[in-house]
């Protein structure tokens, strides 16, 4: 495992432990001031979680709004409603054996769903293409299916590859004789400095032999080839595949059209902040305006509720 991956995991689990430990302190501490400051640790660690998910804008929003706004409000309310000296009675909790049991059951249920059921996973949708005719071979119809996320979640061939694992599976539509090997070609989109355009550059893995794979005979269903690509850098890719053996080779079948998954591509090339800005001023404009009116109403309402009663 490279040192960068070790560091990534170390810091992720460090922040994860802070988040869960802080959450436990919020839930179990008998001192409400300690609970409030543990919530500070939780909110900062959750901001770090967003950073690990490469959601930069949300990190900033979390720190500005949650830590800078909501938490200050909470600490303010704690200080206003309690004498700071009598911390002992400030954070009673009802005896919670039943509630603790319910929470543990809920946690186990959630973990079982996440780790074993994967209800969000879906299979890959094959993308069709044609291998051009070459050296006496007729043109050949083939399908490519791509999965990501350790080879479980399907994606269209033109979708942005996430930093991690991708598996390509190529299958012919008809039974076929006489080919034993398939060669893959990987091209990565490299935007130029202005990010307005770019070029497709050949991506070579550490071991070039990996691109040549054996073809499996599926009998009546045809022939298929499978390639696992581990830790591809995030970006847009074009895939090519051809069959080759001693008798010769076919033409390249090309996958990964430009039109598919455009929004995801925009994020990969221009960053999340720019994509969010476009969405706020585009499809989410109405929701944005409604939320701004709601914030104004909440502000007025909070000021009205919290003001001192004027006795007539």
């Amino acid at each position: 495992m490279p040192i960068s991956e070790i560091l990534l995991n170390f810091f992720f689990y460090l922040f994860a432990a802070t988040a869960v430990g802080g959450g436990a302190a919020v839930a179990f501490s008998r001192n409400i001031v300690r609970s409030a400051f543990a919530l500070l640790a939780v909110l900062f660690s959750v901001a770090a979680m967003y950073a690990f998910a490469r959601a930069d804008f949300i990190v900033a929003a979390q720190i500005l709004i949650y830590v800078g706004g909501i938490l200050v409000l909470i600490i303010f309310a704690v200080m206003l409603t309690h004498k700071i000296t009598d911390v002992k009675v400030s954070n009673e909790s009802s005896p919670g054996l039943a509630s603790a049991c319910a929470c543990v059951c809920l946690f186990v249920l959630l973990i079982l769903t996440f780790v074993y059921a994967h209800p969000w996973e879906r299979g890959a949708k094959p993308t069709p293409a044609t291998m051009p005719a070459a050296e006496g071979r007729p043109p050949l119809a083939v399908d490519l299916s791509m999965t990501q996320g350790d080879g479980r979640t399907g994606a269209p061939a033109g979708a942005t590859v996430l930093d991690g694992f991708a598996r390509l599976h190529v299958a012919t539509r008809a039974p076929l004789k006489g080919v034993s090997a398939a060669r893959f070609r990987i091209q990565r989109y490299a935007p130029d400095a202005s990010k307005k355009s770019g070029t497709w550059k050949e991506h070579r893995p550490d071991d070039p032999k990996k691109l040549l794979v054996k073809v499996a005979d599926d009998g009546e269903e045809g022939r298929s080839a499978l390639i696992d690509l581990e830790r591809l850098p995030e970006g847009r890719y074009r895939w090519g595949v051809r069959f080759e053996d001693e008798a010769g080779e076919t033409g390249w079948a090309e996958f990964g059209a430009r039109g598919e998954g455009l929004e995801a591509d925009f994020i990969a090339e221009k960053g999340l902040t720019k994509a969010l800005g476009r969405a706020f001023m585009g499809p989410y404009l109405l929701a944005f305006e409604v939320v701004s009116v709601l914030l104004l109403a909440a502000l007025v309402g909070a000021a009205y509720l919290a003001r001192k009663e004027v006795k007539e």
Partner: protein
Amino acid sequence: MTDYLFSRHPLENFLVISAALFVLGVYTIITRRNAVSILMGVELVLNAANVNFVAFSQYMPGAGIHGSMFSIFVILLAAAEAAVALAIVIGIYQNFGRVDVDQADLMKE
């Protein structure tokens, strides 16, 4: 062991952490008597939901930015909710002298 690391399964790692935060938040909400503590539990639950939104938005192939978008709206609504809830808490404190939710049982004095 290495199969379960964050760098191999980022989505599942996020989901487990958010499940832990969610359950701790729910526990806080149902056991506390202090209104401000209950509000802290609500913040924990909202943060857990937000972690899920962002993780799915970033780690599902072709998911787009809708999850990230939603998490920003959740943060904004949490701000509005906290402001109004704390104003109510202060109102209860002025009327009852304490902020325990099982004692504030009058709509009007």
